[in-house]
C-alpha cells in the first residue's frame, strides 16, 4: 500500500506491508521492520529494532484521513492521502477561490447570529457566537464579501466542522 502523509506542511511518501503483527514500512525511503499491536483502542505499540513507540491516534474532525498522533510528549497532525484516488484533502474552513466557509471549531450551541444573508462584511467581522463549556467563541469572516449562506439559528447545536456560513 502506498500513501502520502502530510505533516506540518511537508509531504512524506509511505509504503506499508504487513503480515500478522509484522509490518515493513518505508517513509521517504527510510525502511523500518516493525511489530505493531493495537494494545488499546487507537493505541498502537510499535517495536522497531528494540525501540518502543506507543502511538496514540485520534481521528480528528474535519477532513477525511486526518489524525492527531501522540508519541511520548510529541504531537503530530497527520493527513493521509491515497495518491491513487487523486483526491486532495483540504482543511475545512479554507478559502476556495472566492468563497470562504465559516466552520464551527468546536461542538456547541449557537448563542447569537450577528449577520443576515446578504450582509456586507469585512475580513475579521464576527458573524456568529458559539458557546461551549462556559466559553463563547466568535466566528469571524476570513475575507471581505457578502454573506451568501447562513446555516445556523440561535439555539441550534452544532458539531465541530459544520459549515455555519459562507462569505463570497
Amino acid at each position, binding site marked *: *500500500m502506498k*500513501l502520502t*502523509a502530510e*505533516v*506540518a506542511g511537508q509531504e*512524506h511518501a*509511505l509504503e*506499508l506491508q*504487513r*503480515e*500478522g*503483527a509484522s*509490518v515493513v*514500512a518505508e*517513509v521517504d525511503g*527510510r525502511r*523500518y521492520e*516493525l511489530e*505493531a*499491536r*493495537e*494494545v*488499546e*483502542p*487507537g*493505541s*498502537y505499540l*510499535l517495536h*522497531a529494532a528494540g*525501540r518502543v*513507540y506507543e*502511538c*496514540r*491516534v*485520534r*481521528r480528528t474532525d474535519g477532513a477525511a*484521513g486526518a*489524525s*492527531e*498522533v*501522540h*508519541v*511520548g*510528549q*510529541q*504531537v*503530530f497532525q*497527520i493527513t*493521509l492521502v491515497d495518491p491513487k484516488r487523486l483526491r486532495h484533502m483540504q482543511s475545512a474552513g479554507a478559502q476556495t477561490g472566492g468563497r470562504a466557509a465559516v466552520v464551527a*471549531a*468546536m*461542538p*456547541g*450551541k449557537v448563542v447569537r447570529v450577528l449577520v443576515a444573508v446578504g450582509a456586507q462584511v469585512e475580513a475579521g467581522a464576527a458573524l456568529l457566537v458559539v458557546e*461551549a*463549556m*462556559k*466559553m463563547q*467563541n466568535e466566528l469571524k469572516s476570513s475575507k471581505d464579501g457578502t454573506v451568501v449562506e447562513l446555516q445556523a439559528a440561535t439555539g441550534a*447545536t452544532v458539531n465541530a466542522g459544520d459549515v455555519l456560513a459562507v462569505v463570497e
Partner: protein
Amino acid sequence: MFRKILIANRGEIAVRIIRACRELQIAPVAVYSEADAAALHVRLADEAYLLGPAPSVESYLRIDRIVEVAQACGAEAIHPGYGFLAENAAFARAVADAGLTFIGPPPAAMELMGSKTNARRAAARAGAPVVPGTTEPLQSIADARATAAQLGYPVMLKAAAGGGGKGMRFVAEADELASAFTTAQSEAAAAFGDADVYLEKAVARPRHIEIQVCADTHGNYVHLGERECSIQRRHQKVIEECPSPIDEADLRARMGAAALKIARAADYVGAGTVEFLVSDVTREFYFLEMNTRLQVEHPVTEMVTGIDLVREQITVAAGAPLSFTQADVAWRGHAIECRVYAEDPDNNFMPSPGRITTLRVPQGPGVRDDGGVYAGAEVSIYYDPLISKLAVWGRTRAEALDRLRRALDEYAVGGIKTTLPFFRAVVRDEEFIAGRLDTGFIPRFNERHAAHANEIESDARARDMAIIAAALAHTPSMAATHDGTAAQSPVSRWRSAGRVAQQRGYTG
C-alpha cells in the same frame, strides 16, 4: 455526624466529595442533569436524582429542586462543591430554611466577601494590607494625575464595573497617564456601558498567592499555609503549588496571620481561601479577595499538610472542632497540581468536548489524580471543561517536578484534546523549573515555546512512527489485534470489533 449528604455538583469535585463521604461512612446522594445520567459521580453514589435538562440553569442551578430532593431523600446536609451554587448566599439560606445544614460558611460571611468593595474595606479594617488606591471613580484627568502622584507610579487603571481585564491599563509613568485614562474609559464604556475608572498602585511582577484557612464553630481559626497560583490563562489558574517556590517561613507566617484576621472579621466557618497579590520584586503582599468555598487547587495543600480539607469541611459543619491546631500544622515537601482541561492548548485553549475513548491515569509514588471521567464517558459541551486534577508530591520542588514530568508523560486521554501537551512543555521550561512565576508567565512561555517548537519536531523517527500508526489506524485491516493474533486476511473493522466483543464474552 451526618448519615446522608447531598452533593449539589457534578464532575470531579462531586467525585471528590463522594470519596470523603465514603471515608466518613456517610451515604452520598448525587444529583444530575439529563446529560449526566451515566456520569462518574452518579456511578459512585448510593442514590442519584435527576434535576432537569442539561443546561445548568435548568439543573445544577435549580435551588428549589435541589432542596426539594434533599428533603425528600432524607439528606441532613448539602455540600455545594465549587462553582454552580457554592458562593450563592441565597442557596445557603434556602438550605438552612429547609432545616438542612449547608456545608460552607454562614451566609453573612459569603455576602460580605461576595462584594469586592465590602471585602476590601473589611480586610483593611481588620488590619490586612490592601493595594493602595481608591475604588472611587476618577472625576477627571486632573483628579487622575493627583491620585497617581499620591500613590506613586507605576499605577493601574481599572474599570469600576469591571472584571476580565477589560478597561484595565498599566501606567508606568506620568507621561502615559492621559492617553491610558482615555483608552481605559472608552474600553470600560464599550464593555460594561459604564466609563468609570479608578486607580490602584500597580504591583510589580505580581504573583498570585493564596492562604488556605479553616475555622470551626468553636472559635478556632487555623491557616494551612499558601498556594502559588500565578500560572493563569483567561484569569483562571492552570498550575498551582504548595508551598510557593518563594517558600519563606516568615512570609508564610505574616500572610497566614493576615488571612486569619480577615477570616475572623467575617466570622468565617469551614474552609476558605484568602487571595493575595505578592510583588515578586518587593515581596509586599496585598489582599485581593476571599473565596468562601473549597478551591480547585485544594489537593496540593492536602498533600503537603496531610489534612483532608473536605473531610474537615464535613466534620466542622456537623459541629465538631477542627481536628488540628495551628501548632499541629506542618508542611512536608512540595506539591504541584495541573488542571487537565478538555481544551486545545494549540488553539487558544478552545473547548474540546467529546467522548473519551481511552484513559490511562498515571499511578505510582507521589501521584494523585482527582478525576471525574472514565473511558467511554462523554465530556459535555454544557459544563466547565475540567476533567481531572493531577497533583504530585516530592520531598523538594525538584523531586516534585521530576514526578510531574513523569506523570504527565504517562497520562493518556484518547478521543478528545486536553491541556496535557501544554503541561508537558511547561514542566520542561527553564523559567518554570527555576520557579520564576508571575501572572505574565503564559504569554512569555508561549514565545519561548514557539522558538523551541522546531527543534522538537525534528525528531524524524518519532514522526515516521506517528505516520505509520496513523496509516494502521486508517486502514484497520493493517493492524493486529491487541492480543497479537493477527487476522490472516484483510477483515473489516466491523468484524474485528465483533471478534473482540466475542472474546470478552458478550455474544452468546
